[in-house]
Every structure is written in C-alpha cells, then in structure tokens.
C-alpha cells in the first residue's frame, strides 16, 4: 500500500511537469510577454517603454528558457520558466496583478470554497443514491419511468438557470435566504444554504440517472438471484447486496470528481458572491490575470492527481478484490 502510494506520487511528477510545460507554452511561447503587456495595457499604441516597464514589474523581463547573460546555474534559474513555472513545484505562486500574494489568497479562500463544495458533494451523493435506489426499487413501473423522464428533464436545464431561478424565487421573491454574500464562522450558514441547495438540485438529473443504470446493471447479476433464492426480501437484497456492489463504481467515480467540483463551484461562487477559489479564478480569467490563472491550473492538476490516487485507495477499501502494491 505504502509503496503503491509512493509509486503513484512518483508518477505524478512527470504529469505535473507536463502540465507546467503546457501552460508555459500556452502563456509564454504562443503568447509572448509582449502580447500580454499590450493586452493588459489596453490601447493599441502603447509605447515600447510602457511594455518594458510592465514586464519588469511582473518579472517577465527575462529570457524564456536560457539566460545567456548569466553564468552557472543562474543561466537556467534566472529565466521566466524557472521563476514562474518551476517555482510552482514548491507551491510558490508569486503575486497577482493586484499585487497580492497568490499563495495567501489560496489559503484564505480555501475555507469558503470548501464550505460550499463539501456539503454539495456529500448531500448530493446521498440524495442521488436515494433517488436512484427508489427508481430501481420501483423498476419497470410508471414510477420508475416518471423518475427517468424527470431526470432527463432536469438534465436538460442549464446550470445557470438553476442558480438564477434559485436566486430569484428563494431569495428575491420569497425572501427566505440572502441572495448572495458570505460571512465568517457560523454566520456563514444562511449564505451557504442556497448555493448548496441549488447545486444539489442541479446535479440530481444526471447523478440519479447514472446511479440508476449502475444499480440496474448490478441487479441483473447472478449473485442477486442467489440472494433472493436465500429468501431475502427485495429491500434487503437492494440495500445489502446491490448497494454494496454498486457503491464501488459510485464511490470511486465520486472521489475522482472531487477536484472537478472545483470547476462547478466556479459559476456558483461567482453568482453567489462567495469569496472562494472559484470566484477568484473567474475574476482572474475576466481580468486576464495570467499569474493567477497559471497558479490555479497547477493547483487544479495537483488536486486531480491526488484525486486519482485517492480513487485507487478508495477502490482498495470498498472492493476486497483490489490490492494495491
């Protein structure tokens, strides 16, 4: 197990390097620091001095890969690649365009992000599984058919509408919860409820439908017939035998989705004014703050790889047939 995790972490390195090279290529090679400066400074006819000044301020006034003016190790380290990409491996992200330290921002914004994403993840999983089990229990009846049709309809609605409808009806029309914003500590609860509610509802359609197919696949297997032949009731067959086997793909699928929640909360956080990483990213994209976007890309990839490793570990927990070595 330990040797497996170590090996997987070793494998993670080349992937992170790949991510870094790709983002480096996207941000600095295809799109030179000069282009960036011109885009940032806005006007078409900026002076060369202004561009140089901008580059110097942001530390982009260095060669990309090799600094021939330096000697020794410095030829490699005093470059844009090393200073802006390689430094990320030490989680040193530098400063954003607003002059604030990106690492600090990430640390302070992690809390609000988790306050939304975690409940959505847990509640969503429970709700979807319950809904899926209900449909499977009533399979080949009109209840099941109605459930599937409802799921397809829920799936066909853009996530944006869930948020807009939630904000409009729950917050504005009925005044039940604040429309957006955030607070610290326990005061955050009213601000968290609506985004969580909306996100969970938005996920039911695809989630419950997917889990339903997983359970239905399990229910057609031979061991279910054996369980019934033992005289177990349908509820017991469903909850003990089918659920336990169905949880293997569900749990492992959910674990790898964990980092993807990161993307989902992008929209939610921005709509609800949650000062989390999602709204940070979205602001950075809209302000074209490349330093922040790059940092978030790196962080996202890192979390994804952690998610992959967690997936394998969770596999070995829920499925006795899987041994990690």
């Amino acid at each position, binding site marked *: 197990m330990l*040797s497996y995790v*170590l*090996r997987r972490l*070793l494998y993670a390195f080349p992937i992170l390097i790949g991510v870094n090279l790709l983002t480096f290529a996207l941000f600095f090679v295809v799109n030179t620091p000069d282009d960036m400066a011109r885009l940032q400074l806005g006007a078409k006819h900026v002076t060369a001095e202004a561009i140089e000044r901008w580059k110097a301020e942001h530390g982009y006034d260095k060669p990309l890969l090799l600094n021939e003016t330096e000697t020794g190790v410095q030829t490699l380290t005093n470059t844009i690649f090393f200073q802006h990409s390689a430094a990320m491996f030490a989680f040193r992200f530098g400063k954003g365009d607003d002059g604030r330290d990106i690492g600090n921002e990430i640390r302070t914004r992690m809390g609000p992000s988790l306050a939304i994403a975690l409940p959505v993840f847990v509640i969503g999983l429970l709700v979807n599984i319950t809904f899926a089990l209900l449909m499977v229990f009533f399979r*080949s009846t009109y209840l099941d058919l109605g459930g599937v049709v409802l799921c397809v309809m829920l799936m066909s609605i853009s996530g944006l509408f869930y948020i807009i409808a939630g904000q409009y009806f729950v917050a504005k029309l009925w005044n039940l919860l604040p429309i957006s914003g955030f607070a610290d500590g326990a005061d955050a609860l009213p601000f968290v409820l609506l985004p969580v509610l909306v996100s969970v509802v938005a996920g039911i359609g695809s989630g419950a439908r997917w889990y339903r197919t997983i359970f239905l696949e399990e229910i057609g*297997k*031979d*061991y279910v*017939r*054996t*369980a*019934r*032949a*033992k*005289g*177990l*009731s349908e509820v017991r067959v469903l909850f*003990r*035998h089918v659920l*336990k*086997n169905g949880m*293997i793909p569900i749990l492992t699928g959910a674990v790898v989705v964990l980092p993807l929640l990161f993307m989902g909360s992008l929209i939610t956080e921005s709509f609800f004014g949650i000062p989390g990483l999602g709204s940070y990213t979205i602001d950075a994209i809209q302000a074209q703050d490349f330093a922040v976007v790059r940092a978030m890309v790196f962080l996202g990839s890192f979390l994804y790889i952690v998610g992959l490793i967690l997936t394998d570990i969770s596999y070995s927990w*829920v*499925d*006795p*047939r899987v041994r990690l*070595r």
Partner: protein
Amino acid sequence: MKTLLDVRGLVTAIGGARVVDGVSFQVAAGETYALLGESGCGKSMTALSLMRLLPDGGRIDAGTVELDGENLLALPERAMRTVRGGRMAMIFQEPMLALNPVIKVGEQIGEALALHRNLAGEAAHDTARALLDAVGVPDPARRLDAYPFELSGGLRQRMMIAMALAGQPRLLIADEPTTALDVTIQAQVLEVLRALRRERQMGMLLITHDLGVVARNADRVGVMYAGELLEEGTREAFFAAPQHPYSRMLFAALPRPGDGGRLATIPGQVPRLDAAFTGCRFAPRCPYAVARCRAESPGWQTFGAQRVRCHRAGELPAAEMRAPGERPAAALPAAPLLQVDGLKVHFPIRRGLLQRTVGHLRAVDDVSLVIEAGRTLALVGESGCGKTTVGKALLHLVEPSAGRIALAGETVTAARLDRLRRQAQMVFQDPFSSLNPRMRVVDILLEGMEALHVGEAAQRGAAAARLLQQVGLPDDAGERYPHAFSGGQRQRIAIARALAVSPQLVICDEPTSALDVSVQAQILNLLKDLQDELGIAYLFITHNLAVVEYLAHRVAVMYLGRIVESGPATEVLRGPRHPYTQALVAAVPRIDAAAAAATPQLAGDQPSPINPPTGCHFHPRCPQADARCRESYPDARQTNAAHWVRCHMVAGE
C-alpha cells in the same frame, strides 16, 4: 416414498415464448430427480419457476407446484420468501458469479442462518462452521472469513451448497452445479451432494445436460425438449432402454470409449418457442416420424418403469449399438510434422516500488511434443494447466520464452512466421467470440487467403464457396453475417476459415466444449472427415476425455505447465500410469459404468503455477506420494517405445 414436490401442468412464458409448456413431475423425499436436456430446452426455467425467481418479463401462466402438499404458486410473496432458502434451496451453475463478490462467504451463509433459523453471533458462526465441515471445506473457521475470489472454483461451489443447506431444506435444486468445474472437482462436488442427500433425506432436483452426471447421481430421469417433458423413468430403465427417439439419439451422439465409428447426429435445430406447435415438437428432426406425429401431439404412454410421449413408442426398433469401428492405427507413416522441444512460456510478475520482476508465472514449462502428419495429438488437462497457452505459443500468438518449434523439419523463427501461418491454423473454443460480428462470412473466409497471398485473387471467391460446401454450410451462407448462424454452424465457419489457407496442422482449442452433445457430434464427425479427406494433423486441446478417445491417436496429459504422461490414446486412457491421469480417467462420468463403485477421487485443487509445489508438482494431491516425490521432479520414464510417464512410482521399461 412420500412425494415431496409435485409439479403439475406448469406453463411459464417469457415475453411471447412459452419456455416451459405443461411440465409435470414428482420428486420424493430422499430421491434425486434429474431434469436432462440441451441448452434452451427450458430446464433451468422450470427450476426458476419452482422458486418463483423468473427473470424480468417471465411469468407463470398455469399449473401448480406443491411442496409437501402446499401450492407454492398460490402463496403471497412474503410467505414464499420463507420457502426460498428454507424448505426449498437452490444452487447455481457459476459459483464465481452466484456469490456476492464483496461480502465474506461466512456472512453470506450467516444471512441464510439468521433468516431461516434465527441464529446470530456465536451460534451462527458455529453452525456455519459445521456446514462447511459437512460440505468438506478444509479449515472451515478460516474460510468463513474469505471472500469468494480468494477461493477456488470447487470451494466456491461447496460454499454455495453450504449456503443452500443453511435453511435445512427439504428439497435442493441444483442447476448445472458442476458444469463450470473441472472433472476432478466435479467428482468431488457430486460426491458431496450424494452424501448430503443420503444423510439428510433431502429431495434433489438435478438439472443437467450431461448424461454422465445423470448416470451416477439420479434415481429418476426426465428428458426435456423444447419446453416439454418427453420421457421419464427410473435411471436403470432409462439407461437400459431409452424409449423416445430423442433420448436415443442423445445417447448415440455421445462419444464413448472403445468407439471409433461415426457418431449419430440429430439433423436440424431446436424449434423456436414463440411459434405455435402442432403435433410432436421433435417430429421435424425425428427419423421415425409418421404423418400422425406432425398432426397430433402425443400423450403419455407407460412402459414398466418408464413413460414416454411418442406415438411410435414401443414399435421402434430396439436401440442399435454402434459398431465399434477400429481406426486404422498404423495406416499412415509416422513422419513428424510438428516437433516442439523445450517450449516455455513464462509471464513475468512485477511488484514493488519500481515494478521489478520478482518471479515468473510458468504457464508452460518445458513442453516437448511431436505430431505426425495426418494424425491427431490430444493435449489434455484441467483448466489453468497451460494447454491453451501451448496452442497459442505454437502459432506465436503468445511469444514463447524458450524452446524450438520445427514444422516439417524446418525451425520456425520470428522472421519466417508466414510459412508457419500457412501450415498451421487454429480453431477456437467459443464460436461466438471467434467470428467478427461485423464481417460477412465470405470476408471472414477470404481474410486469411488475402493476408497470406494464397491462390490467385480471382479464384479466391470460388475457393471460399468450396470451403463452405466442404464444412456443410448452405451456398448462400457467404453473404450473411455470423449472427444468422447457430453455435454449431458458427464452429463450421471457424473451421472453414482455418482451412482456407490449406494448412497441414490445425490446432483445435476445445472446439466443442461450448456446444450441445448433438452438435458436438456433428463437429467431431466433420473434423474426422476432414482429416481423412485432406490428411490434416490436429493438435486437439481439450479437457473432455470422451472426445479424446474418439478422435485422437496420441494423448499428452498436462499438469501445471508440464506434460506428465504421453502415449497412444487407447493405451493412456485404458491403462493410465500416472496417478493424475488415473484420477482424470476415473473422474469422467460414464454412462455405461452406471453401476461403477466408488472410484479413487482426487483431493484438493490444482495449485497455482506462480508458486508450484516442490518436487513433483502433483505430490500434494497424489494418494501414492512419498518423500522422493516431495524432493525431486521425476524424469520421463518410457514404459514402452511410444508411452512415457513422469512419476517416481512408475518403473521404467
């Protein structure tokens, strides 16, 4: 004897097909009733109807099922649940799939104990252990904590039986309980079932397609065909003189020891069950059918201890015996076609941080073979012994790790594979996965000719048509896709494909094990005809010893990657020298040895080839093993010029 189960006029439909159509039979307490039939005849659906466990879309349309006088079909579902696993339990064919993979077997047995005997905690644990003891699981306390995947096939099926016994059933339904198991394991499991029935006075409904299994285990037999029961009788009467033409043809289709003649086959196919029937359902395939058979469905007629549904029962000629035609043993000169020396196929096992190779799985470990032109060598062994890997390594479908393969005197090298491929081809086990569903039959046949540039492009079409004719397929078969054909027809296509490049050697990997007996007979006959006609040599890989004797000139017996005995077919099968071969031969259920006394049984399972036992690989299961066997692997000893054995106990020439 008291009637335990009484089934009357049972009709079960799935969708529009009446898969069980008016079946009636009785099972007495302490009796084994065997329901015999080929695939799709409705025997499993009968069993599932009794349990009321039909698949989705299935329903029972008519009939009664009485267990101890109580009609099960009238019970509410809740009451039926106490019957299932309680008074009536069932075991299934594939124990790997039938057990829940993520729940420990002890818990799975415990569920049944809690449900039907209100046992929990320590009491349940003790009872479960006692049950495992009863079904002969060694070290039961530890095995209760095992997951199904940690157990061998034989142990899994014993667990299934233990689970079925947990509710102390009066009736045990066994649906093909040993079909997925090797012969030596099958013998063990059947012995367990026999002993349990004796001890507990259970009734048993044994569902099987295997006449051999019936012969050794059943008290009474019912033969099913196309959803109906055709014949019923005591085992003795049925095996002495089967009355229905279908039953007789099943017997005639079975290859038997000392039998070199052609096997009888049943023409045509099993009818579709969603059509309406008039007359006898077997009439279209029956050689004795008269006009009345096609017009009027026959009723039951009783003959002593038998009853049969056939208009012509009683007036049929006495069952004729096949003439045991001797095969012309020395007719062909023994020119070696294929010579294999020291073939090894090792798969590396990687572990640890850097995935270093820590060992090898020795799937094939030093195998040497000779096949003469126009002759058949059978490679026999249980699943996992490496026999299929040998076949694939010969064709370089699996890269051999070591060894020399020579074809017609010429060593095969990786650079000259083309020559090998023109001279040696393969027929696979499963006719459903061996044909690409997206290709027309003619394209399948042409593929090899095109790839190996056999013949002129213009003449290949005609060659394909000739091949189809040769393997007995209709002329228009070429334009169709594989799904239009039955299993047997597909296997003919696969044979035609192999023959398309006119090879001298065909490697047949269990070509009939997925087929019904009557279809198997057709394919075996075809293979034999083709050999006589074209002078092809076969390497016939199989686990079925009955087939070996019918087809093979020589036999090589494989155990754990090595050949342990090799010699002329009749000699090896009738006078096996290696204890493993002896056990294999003894474990084959034979219909003509119905009265055979208890035969020596092999204990335990085949060990893993990753970590084979020291010394003779077979010693842990060998009844004769001594110190010598534990220390060194025996050398080959010739018992005569053509027959050798690797066993310390066998004296050389």
